[in-house]
C-alpha cells in the first residue's frame, strides 16, 4: 500500500529528498521571468518560454526535460519513469538545436533578413563604433577570468566560461548562445541566456546613466550632419557577399555567424526573394525563438542553476553592458580630440548590437537636451555596425580561445 501511495504521490516525495526544495525556487524564478515578460514586456518572446521551460524542467518526474535533478538523486527515483529525461521532447530539441549550435545560426538568418545596412553605407566611418563598443566583451572576459578561480573554476574551463560571459556584453543573444553552445557550457546556458536577453531588454535603463556619467551636457548637444545619398542596389547585394568572404578568410570561426547573417541579408536585398525574406523575418524568427526559449529554460535545473556562479554571471553580464556603452562613448570622445567636426559621443553607445533599441535611446537623450537635435540616423548606422562588430568579436574570441585550448 505504502509503495502504491509512494508511486502515486512521488511528486511530493520528491521534494522531501535531498535539496529538491530548490525546485521550488526555480518555480519562483520561472514565475518572475514570465512576469517580466508579460507585465514589463522585457523580451517577452524569449523570457516567457525560458520561464516556462524553467518550471517544466524542475517538475518531479517531468517527461519533458533535459537533465534532471531527479536523475541525480537516490535510487528510488532513478527507477522511476526513466523514459523521462533521456527521451523528453526538450532533450530532443536541445540535441537538435542547441548542442549543435543550429538555433542561434538560424536566428542569424532571420536577423540578417531584418537588417537594413543602408544607414551604414551612408556613414561608413560609423563602423568603427561597432568595434569600439565591443570593449565591454573583452573587459568582462578578463574580469571573469580573474574571478572564476575564486569559484573553483580554473584553467581552460575558466577560459571557456569567461568567453561566454564576456560575449553577453555584445548585447547579442544569438552570439552569446553560439559561444556557450560551442564550449558545451550546458550548466551555465540558463544564466548566460537569461542575462543576455534580459539585459538586452534593459538597454533603455542601463545605458542612459552610463552615457550621462561620461558626457557633458555640451557634448550631448553636439549636432551632426547627415547626407542623404542614394545607395545603389549593387552595393547592397555585394556587401553581404564580400563581408562573408573577408570574415571567412580572416576569422574562419566567425563564418557560421557572419555567413548566416549575411545570407539572410542577401535574401533581403536581392529583390527577387521577397517571400523567402518575409519568411525568414517572421515565420523562421518566430519558430526558432519559440523553440530556443523553451529549450534554454529547460537547461535551468535547480541543482545547476542555484549556485554562486549564476549570481556572478548575472552580475558580470551587467558589467559587460556597462563597459560596452562606456567603450563606445569614450572612443567617440577620443576621436573628438583629433576631429574638427565633433561627433556626438552618445553615438558611440549605439555601437552595441541591441538593434534598434540602443539607437533610439541615444536619439531620445539627444532630443531631451535639445529638442531640435536629430542624431537617429548616425546612431542607427553605429547600431548596424554593432551587429557586425559583435559577431566578429564572437568569432574572434572563439578562434583565440580555441587556439589556446587546442593542444590540451
Amino acid at each position, binding site marked *: 500500500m505504502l509503495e502504491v501511495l509512494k508511486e502515486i504521490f512521488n511528486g511530493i516525495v520528491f521534494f522531501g529528498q535531498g535539496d529538491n526544495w530548490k525546485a521550488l525556487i526555480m518555480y519562483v524564478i520561472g514565475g518572475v521571468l514570465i512576469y517580466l515578460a508579460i507585465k514589463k514586456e522585457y523580451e517577452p518572446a524569449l523570457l516567457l518560454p525560458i520561464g516556462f521551460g524553467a518550471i517544466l524542467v524542475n517538475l518531479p518526474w517531468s517527461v519533458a526535460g533535459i537533465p534532471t535533478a531527479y536523475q541525480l538523486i537516490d535510487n528510488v527515483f532513478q527507477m522511476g519513469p526513466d523514459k523521462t529525461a533521456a527521451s523528453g521532447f526538450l532533450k530532443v530539441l536541445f540535441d537538435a538545436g542547441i548542442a549543435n549550435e543550429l538555433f542561434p545560426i538560424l536566428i542569424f538568418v532571420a536577423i540578417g533578413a531584418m537588417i537594413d545596412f543602408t544607414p551604414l553605407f551612408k556613414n561608413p566611418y560609423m*563602423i568603427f563604433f561597432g568595434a569600439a563598443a565591443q570593449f565591454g566583451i573583452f573587459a568582462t572576459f578578463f574580469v571573469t577570468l580573474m574571478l572564476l578561480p575564486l569559484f573553483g573554476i580554473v584553467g581552460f574551463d575558466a577560459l571557456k566560461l569567461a568567453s561566454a560571459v564576456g560575449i553577453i556584453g555584445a548585447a547579442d543573444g544569438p552570439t552569446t548562445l553560439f559561444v556557450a553552445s560551442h564550449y558545451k557550457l550546458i550548466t551555465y546556458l540558463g544564466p548566460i541566456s537569461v542575462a543576455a536577453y534580459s539585459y538586452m531588454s534593459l538597454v533603455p535603463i542601463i545605458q542612459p546613466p552610463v552615457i550621462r556619467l561620461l558626457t557633458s551636457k555640451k557634448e550631448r548637444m553636439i549636432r551632426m550632419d547627415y547626407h542623404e545619398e542614394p545607395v545603389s542596389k549593387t552595393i547592397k547585394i555585394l556587401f553581404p557577399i564580400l563581408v562573408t568572404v*573577408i570574415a571567412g578568410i*580572416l576569422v574562419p570561426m566567425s563564418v557560421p555567424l557572419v555567413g548566416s547573417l549575411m545570407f539572410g541579408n542577401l535574401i533581403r536585398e536581392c529583390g527577387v526573394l521577397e517571400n523567402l525574406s518575409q519568411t525568414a523575418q517572421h515565420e523562421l524568427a518566430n519558430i526558432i525563438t519559440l523553440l530556443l526559449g523553451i529549450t534554454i529554460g529547460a537547461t535551468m535545473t535547480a541543482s545547476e542553476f542555484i549556485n554562486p556562479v549564476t549570481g556572478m554571471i548575472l552580475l558580470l553580464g551587467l558589467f559587460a553592458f556597462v563597459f560596452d556603452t562606456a567603450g563606445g562613448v569614450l572612443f567617440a570622445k577620443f576621436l573628438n580630440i583629433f576631429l574638427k567636426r565633433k561627433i556626438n559621443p552618445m553615438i558611440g553607445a549605439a555601437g552595441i548590437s541591441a538593434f534598434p533599441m540602443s539607437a533610439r535611446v541615444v536619439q531620445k537623450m539627444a532630443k531631451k537636451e535639445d529638442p531640435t537635435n536629430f542624431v537617429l540616423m548616425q546612431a542607427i548606422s553605429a547600431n548596424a555596425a554593432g551587429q557586425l562588430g559583435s559577431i566578429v568579436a564572437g568569432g574572434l574570441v572563439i578562434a583565440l580561445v580555441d587556439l589556446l585550448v587546442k593542444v590540451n
Partner: protein
Amino acid sequence: MTLNSVVLASIFSIENLQDPNTELWVKGLFVVIIGLIGVFLVLFLFFLTIVLMQKISEAVIGRKTKKAQKSQV
C-alpha cells in the same frame, strides 16, 4: 594560416600560451589584446569594402551619365 595566427605568432609564443601552467591572466590578456585589434582590423576592412564599392559605383554612374550626355549631344 589565418591572420590571427600570424599576429599571434609575432607577438606571443603559442607554445607558451598553450601551456596549462601559464598564468591565466597572461592568456586572458592575449585574448583581450589580439581580440580588440582583430575586431578593429576586420571592421576596418569592411569599411574599406564599403568605401571602395561606393567609389566604383560613383564612377560607373558618372560614366553612364557622361555617355548619356554625349549621345544627347
